[in-house]
């Protein structure tokens, strides 16, 4: 009888798999960069105006980039049958699901966060707002991964390339985006930005506790 792999082993496996499919993994980051380039072209290159909308733009683009990649969180495992293996295993599948969420954040949310100062610079975001932006994006993208996993688990057996997943997930993303942008706007205005950030932290804790359970239940339904 095979030993059940530990939580970290699951995370390691998924990060490794993402590394092997580097093209797919990097695509959301390139998307993030490219779409941020559209903003000055579409609106105005005026630094003053750009800096006013930069927090919102960064957050919306990060959200879209996550949305682009969230489908893959279960898709590959569904295609090669390892998801089915996971579901018959006599153990709590919420834990491997949580591991998948963490791995997805490590290969999408974290790089997005690390990339954001570069883009913030091109959008003339005041430097004083960088810590707030980094923290809000780091926490927020983890929330996006967790909630997105529920949507992905509901649609995993429906095939790829559908627009259904964004339809399910975007309304659930709205609250975190409100707090995320507010954190950065507060920092730009020189206010204490710990309030909205704390709200984000609370939401992330709740999501990390509940989303794996919901996603696990959904996986049992949709890919049985």
């Amino acid at each position, binding site marked *: 009888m095979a030993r059940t792999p530990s939580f970290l082993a699951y995370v390691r496996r998924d990060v490794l798999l993402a590394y092997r499919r580097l093209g797919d993994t990097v695509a959301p980051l390139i998307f993030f960069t490219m779409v941020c380039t559209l903003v000055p072209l579409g609106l105005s290159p005026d630094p003053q105006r750009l800096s006013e909308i930069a927090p919102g733009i960064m957050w919306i683009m990060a959200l879209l980039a996550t949305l682009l990649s969230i489908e893959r969180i279960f898709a590959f495992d569904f295609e090669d049958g390892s998801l089915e293996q996971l579901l018959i295993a006599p153990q709590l599948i919420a834990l491997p699901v949580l591991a998948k969420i963490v791995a997805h954040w490590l290969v999408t949310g974290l790089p997005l966060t690390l990339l954001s100062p570069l883009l913030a610079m091109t959008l003339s975001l005041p430097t004083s707002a960088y810590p707030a932006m980094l923290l809000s994006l780091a926490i927020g993208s983890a929330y996006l991964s967790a909630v997105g996993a*529920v949507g992905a688990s*509901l*649609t995993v*057996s*429906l095939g790829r390339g*559908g627009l*259904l997943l964004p*339809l*399910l997930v*975007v*309304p*659930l993303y*709205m*609250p975190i985006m*409100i*707090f995320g942008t*507010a954190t950065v*706007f507060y920092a730009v205005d020189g206010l204490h930005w710990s309030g909205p950030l704390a*709200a984000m932290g609370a*939401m992330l804790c709740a999501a990390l506790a*509940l989303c794996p359970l*919901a996603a696990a*239940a*959904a996986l049992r*339904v*949709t890919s049985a």
Partner: protein
Amino acid sequence: MVTEVKKWQWFYRLGSPRWFYEITGRWLPWLLCAASLLLASGLFWGLLVAPPDARQGNSFRIIYLHVPAAILALVGYYIMALAGAVGLIWRIKMSFMVMKSAAPIGAALTFIALFTGAVWGKPSWGTYWVWDARITSMLILLFLYLGVLALQRAFSSAEMAYRASAILALVGTINIPIIYKSVDWWHTLHQPATLKLTSASSIHIDMLQPLIVMICGFYVFYVVALCLFTRAEIIRREATSAWVRALVSNESSR
């Protein structure tokens, strides 16, 4: 043992599509009468008899459609999620059918609330759309309904569609208070409160009475529509069962 069975009998009866179909068939005419009576009298009272608002004149009369629709849209989401939860926990197919039926009704009521809100906004705010906290929350609620509807239609297996959309409805239910709170907070952040339409406490009693009639009317109407949708779903799902066949052949022999 026997008492135990009796105690739970109603629960299992409720879970029987046939029983639901027959009992609602008997009640529906009465419920429909009650709904039309309440809605007709409420509309007459609200549109023609109630005094005009001091500030907004007669445009405030839209409240008699806007507020009941908004209430039922929100309540409807909870009804849908509750039915889905009952279905998931006790594995009752009937409950899933109710859940599926609640989605289009809720979406339609949300649409009514948004539409009447926009039309009302023109004379009172001078614009059809403002990013007001309540309107924005309502729009997100419509998106949540549309998500459930889309997911229901995406699966080829009815059973899978039931379960998946029930889970989505439950996730949405947890999110609704968060959405409302965050949108509320977001609104105070970005603009000071514009013209307040009506605060419930300040509404005059002559205006409140027809509103209560309309809210009751919408509740009864909701039950009627839910029964109608569920009955259609029952026939579709139970098409091969003996009782539906007997029902059909009895009807055609008559």
